[in-house]
């Protein structure tokens, strides 16, 4: 009996000491795709996160932020597993998660089962995450895939005079959303999208996909990322492909533009659109690039931050600034903190960001073209900057809701 009570006492003191530590620290769980096809994207996301901590510091009032990182592989179940582990084992109070589209939808749904915690999206960009049945405790400070394509269809139609294009994309929600944005605008101008090919995430052998690309189109749009994009370009080069290319936001990005080998040279001159442009002259952007470059030795980073680094930077920035506004007060199920998050306007490196009523970002978009800097390094050059892009892409919400949710075949190629 006495033994038992001594044991209980020891145990409870252990818990108490744990609680005492938790009072001084705010625990934040971070997930990134550090395995699988999108490994490189996850690694650079974490660099962006680290850059934000270097710039802003980890102190909130008298409390210290503690970050715990968990790895995922871009599948929804891996993301939920990682988030669950962070909540149940590491007892985090805030989550900075996840990176990839399908993960985002799964984590948003999971967020509803933990209304007492707050979720800040790290980088995922599927439309459904915040557009359909949004979770009240899920905030997204990056635009979705469709917003990131705004301006591309018009530029391709007006300036490049493309009339017929075909698309190749990975078969999951983020790329559906990207193609959604592209098709809406390009077909709205009068262009045609003749063929949409979908390949599983993690495809290694693209030879047959490349062979099936149509010849009678003006350009081919590539919605691929990470290892898939590099594999595609490598085999595209081996097959002697010469078509005009257009790129999605993670296709034309430092994760691909600075990959090893010379297959990436097929991308020179490719037009794309994204939430950032490598060569933008805005002082805020240049300052961020400098901070990123100073934070890591040249062989441990890209020449310039990727879209993922920027997104992780922005979401970490929102987290820290909002926490500082409420002085780290997470009482009453984090109500004050959430209010601050919803209201905050970020002066982010890639343009001003504010949230709409679904807690989805309204931000700035960039149309870009890939250029060679003369020393063999590739960068995305700004062609056009489009501010204030909202989730309905400037459409009337009623019209927008009739288009349907992004999928393999939605939207149809017509003017809505």
């Amino acid at each position: 009996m006495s033994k038992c009570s001594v044991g209980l006492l020891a145990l409870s003191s252990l818990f108490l000491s744990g609680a005492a530590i938790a009072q001084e620290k705010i625990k934040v769980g971070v997930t990134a795709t550090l395995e699988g096809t999108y490994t490189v994207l996850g690694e650079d996301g974490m660099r962006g996160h680290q850059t934000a901590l270097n710039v802003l510091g980890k102190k909130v009032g008298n409390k210290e932020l503690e970050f715990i990182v968990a790895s995922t592989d871009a599948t929804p179940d891996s993301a939920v597993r990682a988030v669950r582990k962070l909540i149940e084992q590491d007892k985090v109070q805030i989550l900075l998660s996840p990176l990839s589209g399908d993960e985002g939808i799964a984590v948003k749904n999971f967020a509803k089962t933990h209304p007492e915690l707050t979720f800040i999206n790290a980088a995922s960009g599927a439309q459904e995450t915040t557009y359909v049945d949004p979770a009240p405790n899920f905030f997204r400070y990056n635009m979705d895939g469709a917003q990131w394509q705004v301006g591309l269809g018009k530029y391709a139609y007006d300036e490049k005079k493309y009339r017929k294009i075909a698309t190749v994309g990975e078969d999951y929600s983020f790329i559906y959303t990207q193609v959604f944005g592209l098709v809406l605008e390009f077909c709205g101008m009068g262009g045609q999208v003749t063929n949409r090919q979908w390949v599983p995430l993690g495809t290694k052998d693209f030879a047959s996909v490349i062979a099936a690309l149509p010849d009678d189109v003006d350009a081919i749009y590539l919605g691929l990322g990470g290892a898939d994009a590099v594999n595609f370009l490598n085999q595209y080069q081996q097959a002697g492909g010469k078509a005009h290319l257009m790129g999605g936001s993670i296709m034309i990005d430092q994760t691909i533009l600075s990959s090893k080998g010379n297959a990436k040279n097929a991308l020179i001159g490719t037009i794309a659109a994204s939430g950032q442009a490598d060569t933008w002259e805005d002082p805020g952007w240049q300052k961020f690039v400098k901070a990123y470059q100073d934070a890591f030795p040249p062989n441990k980073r890209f020449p310039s931050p990727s879209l993922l680094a920027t997104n992780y930077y922005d979401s970490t920035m929102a987290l820290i600034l909002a926490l500082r506004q409420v002085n780290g007060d997470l009482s009453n199920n984090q109500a004050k903190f959430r209010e601050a998050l919803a209201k905050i306007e970020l002066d982010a490196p890639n343009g001003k960001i504010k949230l709409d009523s679904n807690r989805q970002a309204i931000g700035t978009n960039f149309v870009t073209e890939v250029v060679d800097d003369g020393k063999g390094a590739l960068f995305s050059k700004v062609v056009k900057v489009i501010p204030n892009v909202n989730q309905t892409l400037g459409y009337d919400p009623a019209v927008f809701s009739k288009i349907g949710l992004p999928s393999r075949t939605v939207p149809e190629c017509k003017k809505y």
Partner: protein
Amino acid sequence: MSRFVERHPAWALIAIIAIAIVLWMIFAIWPPGLEEAIGRKRVFLNALFNGITLGGLYFLVASGFTLIFGLMRNVNLAHGSLYLFGGYVGYAISASTGSWILSFIVAFILTALVGVLLQVIVFRRMEGQDLRQTMVTIGLSIVFADLMLWACGGDFYQIQTPGWLIGPIELPLITAIKSSGEPVYLRYPLVRLVIFVASVVIGVAMWLALNRTRIGMIVRAGVDDRDILAATGVRIQLVFVAVFAFGAGLAGIAGVVGGTFQSLSPGEDIRFLLASLVVVIVGGMGSIPGAALGALIIGLAEQLGSVYIPTYAIVVTFLIMVLVLAIRPQGLLARR
């Protein structure tokens, strides 16, 4: 062959008709109706060739696996790790010396050495205990995967294709006739053809070595009855080590091939272990011709599937495996 025709005249007829149709589809110029029904001939030919070349890669991995199984009854579930290890070694060599050929040689030797260590340290200690071997090799494959993740990171690597292999060549196969009457020939990546030819050469060499040499005779005798072979005075343990080393070395070579026309990253080990398991189950455990046939079928199914039924492409290979297990559980070309 003639015995097969005598015993199964109906099946032989179906096979001959199928081969004739495929040959016609390869060499003839497609009528417009056919092009409308199943797409352009260029797409079909490419998918067909890709399937065959991918089959060549699968054969390289699976033949080592099936050889080891056939002789020693070892189910080596760390075979995928040997593949990935060979690939990483090949990348390191080709990145530091710039020689593609040298990377094959070094990858073969180093993976063969790992194979020798596996055989001497692990398998010899638990001969004849199938379950223990299986468990230990699963464990080893997890340990190897983590070691390689620690050493090489989660990044993806691509072995640089040598300059003379980059780009396509024209094959004397007409895919279409232009409106001007000029024929359009099939353009196909040279590197894949070279890799396919190399795997055919290795396959034929293996078959000859097994069927025409003294060592091959010993190995075949060992496959049939190990104990009697040992009783005749052959140093069976030496044969085991040699075969294991060779099988592992083949996996290493396959790693370099895979790293050249695909890419290397964590997770590839499991993918290729699974692929070689499916290949040997379809072809028949322990049979080299079976591995060749299985690899061809799986490669073709994957590539034709990805073009003609993209949504269900992943399922096709497993459907084939299920069918084979249901109709001919010992595998298509198994002897017993």
